[in-house]
């Protein structure tokens, strides 16, 4: 097997936010944003590892941190055997020569007052490579190599198109003959016809100069096109890593599956392709979900073993729980609705109907059923069967008296999932590891599951992947 050029272990980058005046006045704890939270992967010599994820998942922070453009808050990064985070002086300089970056935005990453020649030459100047004449010659070579012309040496960035500017960025990254380049959304600002030119150029350069790439992108087609292996990131964590064909043809993690399904294909069959869209938004990295971070949207979230339930119903109940736990249910409007429905009372006198001591309130008492009906109607898209409908109604009933905790605990007791209690992890002995409780998990995770006394899938329900361990 090819050697790893880059080894990233438990890389962590937390930002601390305590910006607003109110925060400071209250002297509250700074909020930490877990942009990258314990990410481990290798990039092998000569390969392209694609790092894919949606905005805010931490993929760009990950790239910047491992290049030491930002300081990590934890973890290690080894490049060619050396600990990058420990480097200083000459060693750091030589790392910086060897590991380059190409950014998304060829407009803001180029200094508008510097000619193209000076831009590409700058790294050579900084590292005092050769004589001035040699540097100039090298720049001309580089410009030609990336498909520009050496006549354009004295032109300024604004005179170039987006694709040409990206070529300038690439020439600059190549100037010091690096082994490794982080490509951070290199074609996201470009039109598709120009993107194709740049992707072809990048793969030619890789062959010619034996480059190793870490390609960071949100665009799955681009990732598929030039990666050898792919790592999928969600909310600061890796959820699945594997060879490109495996990831795209037999994705394992429910998030990867949903991501792939979501991409609209440019083909005439597309209209008839059924897709199950994910519900909800990506949660905030300020307050990521416990356990598996994908569990708030996961269509396969795992019900407790002793509960027999249709998967869609379970997903629905988990959404209801989420809303109750975050108190995102508008109770007033439900009461207003109920009051409006009453022939005698009329909506305007609702306030007088609802006394201060809600438990004693005869109106609430009398109309509890109607209120629960209304909440059900508003909150449930999927009809629940038998006992599940009963349990959910009894929880919603607690909301008549604004007992949020009571409602939450009724549901938590019945429906607590292993996915919310124990974080899944990537198995480190696999070519295609996946962090999900649907698959057999590393011993450390299994031990946590046992400690937490939640039921995890066992026996037949576990999807093992014996064939591929290596």
């Amino acid at each position, binding site marked *: 097997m090819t050697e790893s050029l880059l080894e990233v272990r438990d890389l962590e980058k937390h930002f601390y936010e305590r910006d607003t005046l109110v925060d400071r006045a209250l002297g509250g704890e700074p909020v930490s944003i877990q942009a990258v939270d314990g990410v481990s992967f290798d990039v092998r010599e000569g390969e392209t590892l694609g790092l894919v994820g*949606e*905005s805010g998942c931490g993929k760009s922070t990950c790239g910047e941190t491992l290049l030491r453009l930002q300081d990590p808050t934890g973890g290690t990064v080894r490049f060619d055997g050396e600990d990058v985070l420990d480097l200083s002086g000459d060693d750091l300089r030589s790392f910086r020569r060897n590991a380059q970056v190409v950014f998304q935005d*060829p*407009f803001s990453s180029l200094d508008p007052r510097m000619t193209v020649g000076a831009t590409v030459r700058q790294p050579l100047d900084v590292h005092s490579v050769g004589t001035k004449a040699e540097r100039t010659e090298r720049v001309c070579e580089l410009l030609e190599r990336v498909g520009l*012309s050496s*006549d354009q040496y004295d032109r300024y960035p*604004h*005179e*170039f*198109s*987006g*694709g*040409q500017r990206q070529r300038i960025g690439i020439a600059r990254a190549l100037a010091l003959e690096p082994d490794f380049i982080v490509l951070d959304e290199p074609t996201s*600002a*470009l*039109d*598709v*016809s*120009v*993107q*194709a*030119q740049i*992707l*072809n150029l990048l*793969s030619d350069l890789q062959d010619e100069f034996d480059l190793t790439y870490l390609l960071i992108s*949100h665009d*799955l*087609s*681009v990732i*598929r*096109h030039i990666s050898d292996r792919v790592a999928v990131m969600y909310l600061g964590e890796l959820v699945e890593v594997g060879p*490109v*064909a495996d990831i*795209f043809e037999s994705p394992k993690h429910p998030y990867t599956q*949903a*991501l*792939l*399904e*979501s*991409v*609209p*294909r*440019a*083909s*005439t069959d*597309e*209209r008839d*392709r059924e*897709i199950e*869209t*994910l*519900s*909800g*938004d990506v949660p905030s990295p300020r307050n990521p979900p416990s356990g598996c971070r994908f569990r708030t949207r996961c269509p396969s979230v795992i019900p407790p073993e002793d509960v027999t339930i249709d998967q869609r119903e379970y997903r629905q109940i988990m959404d209801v729980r989420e*809303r109750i736990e975050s108190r*995102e*249910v*508008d109770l007033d*409007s439900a009461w207003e609705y109920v009051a409006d429905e009453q022939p005698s009372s009329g909506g305007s006198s609702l306030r007088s109907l609802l006394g201060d001591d809600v438990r004693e309130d005869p109106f609430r008492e009398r109309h509890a059923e109607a209120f629960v009906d209304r909440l059900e109607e*508003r909150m449930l898209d999927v009809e629940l069967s038998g006992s599940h409908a009963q349990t959910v109604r009894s929880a919603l009933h607690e909301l008549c008296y604004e007992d949020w905790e009571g409602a939450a605990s009724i549901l938590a007791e019945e429906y607590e999932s292993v996915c919310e209690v124990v974080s899944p992890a990537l198995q480190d002995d696999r070519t295609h590891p996946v962090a999900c409780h649907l698959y057999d998990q590393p011993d450390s995770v299994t031990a946590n599951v046992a400690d937490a006394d939640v039921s995890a899938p066992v026996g037949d329900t576990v999807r093992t992947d014996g064939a591929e361990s290596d």
Partner: protein
Amino acid sequence: MPRDLLSVRDLTTRFFTQEGQVNAVEKVSFDVEEGEVLGIVGESGSGKSVTALSLVDLVEDPGRIVTGEINYRNSELAESASENAPDAVDGDFVDVRKLPERHRRALRGPDFATIFQDPASSLNPSLPVGEQIAEAVEVQRRASANPRSTRSRTQSYGLGKFLLGTALPGQGYLTEESKARAIELLELVGIPDPAERAEALPHEYSGGMLQRAMIAQALAGEPELLIADEPTTALDVTIQAQILDILGDIQEETGMTILLITHNLGVIARMCDRVGVMYAGEIVERGSLEDVFDNPVHPYTQGLLGSIPDLESAGGRLQPIEGNVPSLLDQEMEDRCYFADRCPNAMEECLEKPPEFPGPGSPDHAAKCYLADHPYEPEQALPEDYFDDESSDTTVGRDDGKDDASGEGVSADD
């Protein structure tokens, strides 16, 4: 037999910049059928967004619609306009460009609604989202409550705006019904707990939620035509899938007509019945989705489809379109096929502007390319370096990148 709701003829929009005249949209003609989703696809600088803005009269200085007709089928409007703008009327169609400006603007909302890539352009940051949607509901209510005469419609619309904008600042919803309708609309577009979210300000919404709110606002007017310009471009793919789903469902339920403008061929394939492909300000190929995707004749369409990396199969070399988007500066544009300098099949005759020829597919299929008329003639091929002198100069100041916000209208699109 579907009827045309909108029939655009020779629409030409130019920008008069310091560098010169930019021909952003050049004699564009197309029809939008009632109840269909028509897609317009193109890269930056193709003129697709300027086309959208032209339809709703939102082209900003130094841009101007120079010529063209925007014929809108609406018999009531035609009837009332025959009094005060008889020139504009042709049967059931009204050329909205010939209506007095105030009347034309009154069509925005109840007749033509827009959603854009950036919700900030449609939502006021300092008003609760629900209130803004309720406003749109009110405008629609007034429009449909009044007899459909241009005069009274415009007056009521103007009055409504006046009341909402000045007389009742911060008074919240005008009526309980419009508030209730706003909440219904928020629910329809998939916003959880809409009653509560209606009270929130736009910045309290996530990107995907804001996009939904903008759709709700557009739907509030119960528009005849929804113009969606890159409605999902700023969104992550899982959210994009949700939004396309919602748009598709609403379209199916209400039979609303949609003009969808995007650079994303996948989005076009998912949503559209018919497609027009724009390049350098012109529609260069049009037809059914099948015509354009499975049987394209214009080398630009072919190139565009060939440049997308395939999600379903592994690498291999992409077939990019060489070169860059041409200048749209009038003084640099020659009277030839605008794609000739990048076209692998450019021939002598292409130095003369090709007319639109019928294509080999459905009756709707057509392309502005000689290859739609007769096969490629190798002996006619232009020498490979034919455009070289020109391009070494003209690539300068050109743009093929998307974020040329600073392009000062040189690439007037996006």
